[in-house]
């Protein structure tokens, strides 16, 4: 058996024993490290979960979405409706396009107010582009041009039922003193704030886009939401849309945002966010590490005689150093394991209150343990080194 192994295993046994003896001090040290590691774990996990959550929202709506708006500061008034309606057919790199004219209105049913919100002038493709589904009736169709027919969001429908409507399809809804016949009711649709455009379907009323032109004081098409063809790079789709509008409407500046571009941007931001959270967590870890250092310094000071005796019996400086280093590393690794459990518990709790999907990030757990050991080595080194350099003569004489 090698000397190093023999000394290290004896040191590990005695370190564990020594930690057990100094119970209160050990517990305090553990708590410090535990809080530090748990905050790092919780912060990094939450960052990862937030990123995962945003990614899922994008995927639910498709990463092929392209949003076209008039650029701020462009000289032209707005996107013309005829151009917006033709873009899907004329541009091969997109499969469908949904123009929207929006305004706001107050909704009344049977003389009672049932809410207020967006009045969105749309075409048939708006439902498929935005993955809207119906619980009743049908969506706006291309044959509904100029008709006073509407599709209501789930929230508006709920309010109408509350006001006494038993069958919604066919009933009349008053939008800013204009009567509309309800032809369809949307399913509840969770809003995706990660997207470059807000649909806010639940609280909206959808009407044919040509009807909207009459009742909404808007200069033209507010936005065109399109989907790029599978396998087409989003840059190509953007370039094709631009060249289409350049021909049809020279002087119209466009602001085109694609989901893929946003995802890429978001990934970078989330990375920075996670890093920042990790840094915040690390501060408490450093405080925990300083606690360990303090404890180890006290331990060394208390055991000067023991160190001197060991040196007299033949312990080398590095044997003494490893004895104290092992002690601090054991302390931080146990603290680290408790911290990981606490951090994951905290993350789980936060996820429960925010409706996020809890996931255990393997990376954060592994780095938590690694960091704990590193903290033990880093903050344990100075005390251990100090112990190894003690003068055995002074220690034996009790000085």
């Amino acid at each position, binding site marked *: *058996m*090698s*000397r*190093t*192994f*023999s*000394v290290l295993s*004896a040191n590990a046994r*005695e370190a564990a*024993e*020594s930690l057990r*003896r100094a119970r209160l001090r050990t517990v305090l040290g553990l708590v410090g490290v535990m809080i530090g590691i748990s905050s790092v774990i919780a912060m990094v996990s939450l960052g990862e979960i937030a990123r995962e959550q945003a990614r899922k929202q994008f995927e639910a709506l498709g990463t092929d979405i392209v949003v076209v708006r008039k650029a701020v500061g462009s000289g032209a008034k707005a996107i013309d409706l005829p151009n917006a309606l033709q873009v899907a057919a004329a541009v091969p790199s997109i499969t469908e396009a949904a123009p929207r004219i929006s305004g706001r209105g107050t909704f009344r049913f049977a003389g009672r107010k049932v809410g207020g919100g967006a009045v969105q002038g749309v075409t048939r493709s708006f439902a498929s582009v935005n993955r809207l589904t119906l619980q009743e009736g049908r969506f706006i169709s291309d044959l509904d041009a100029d008709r006073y027919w509407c599709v209501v969001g789930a929230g508006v429908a709920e309010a109408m039922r509350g006001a006494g409507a038993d069958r919604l399809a066919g009933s009349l809804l008053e939008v800013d003193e204009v009567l509309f016949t309800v032809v369809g009711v949307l399913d509840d649709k969770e809003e995706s704030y990660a997207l470059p455009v807000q649909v806010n379907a639940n609280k909206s009323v959808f009407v044919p886009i040509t009807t909207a032109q009459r009742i909404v004081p808007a200069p033209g098409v507010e936005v065109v939401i399109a989907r790029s063809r599978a396998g087409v790079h989003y840059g190509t789709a953007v370039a094709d849309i631009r060249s289409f509008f350049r021909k049809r409407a020279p002087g119209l500046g466009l602001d085109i945002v694609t989901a893929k571009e946003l995802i890429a941007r978001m990934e970078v931001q989330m990375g920075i966010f996670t890093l920042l959270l990790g840094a915040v967590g690390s501060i408490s870890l450093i405080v925990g590490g300083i606690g360990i250092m303090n404890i180890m310094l006290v331990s060394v000071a208390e055991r000067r*005689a*023991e160190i001197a*005796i*060991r*040196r*007299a*019996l*033949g*312990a*080398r*400086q*590095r*044997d003494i150093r490893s004895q104290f280093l092992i002690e601090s590393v054991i302390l931080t690794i146990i603290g680290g394991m408790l911290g990981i459990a606490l951090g994951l518990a905290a993350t789980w709790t936060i996820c429960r209150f925010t409706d996020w999907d809890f996931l255990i990030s393997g990376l954060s757990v592994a780095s938590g343990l690694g960091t704990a050991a590193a903290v033990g080595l880093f903050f344990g080194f100075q005390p251990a080194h100090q112990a190894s350099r003690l003068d*055995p*003569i002074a220690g*034996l*004489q009790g000085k």
Partner: protein
Amino acid sequence: MLKLTGIRRSYRIGPVTTEILRGVDLEVHAGDLMSIMGPSGSGKTTLMNIVGLLDRPTSGACILDGRDVSGLRDDELSALRNRHIGFVFQSFHLLPQLTALENVCLPLVYRGAGRPEMRRHAQAILERVGMAERTGHRPDQLSGGQKQRVAIARALVGEPALLLADEPTGALDADTAGEVMALLRQLNAERGITILIITHDPSVAGQCARQTRIRDGRLFEPKAAAADGA
């Protein structure tokens, strides 16, 4: 076996340099039972630290088993202490958290022995010093005499060339002190263990075959009249 020539040791405290040892010559032969007697402040502990390789002389040569130890690195000195020197202290210096057996094992730990082998050796040596029944006791469960027996067992477990005892009976009552001295003499006589005892007590020194005195940093050997540091 051990030869000191012209050992000087001085300490500087602030601007003042105090010379504790002023040229000590000493030769210890294998199998010696030897005492160094002197009043406190005479330099006997300093001399023991130098012999025990815990301290380095300011000048002079210290030769252990034919090897000059003055230029050795700290690690090498630790290894030499571990193999060649056994310490017995006035206040025992057992580690309070370890059992008697574990205390006795310590020098073997730093030698890299396997656990079963260590325990076997320690058990045997504890039996030899009459502590076979107390191997699992911790120091606070032992009397002064028992503690010193464990300490002697610890000093001997590594089969050192030299056992250094600094006031081994200083903390014991007269009866117990007599028993400990009897044990040391027995070990010297039966096993030929070389023992160097440092004491201020003439009755302890009187039980040693070779007796030296230290005074004002110089060593005298009345009987042999050999080592006169002047």
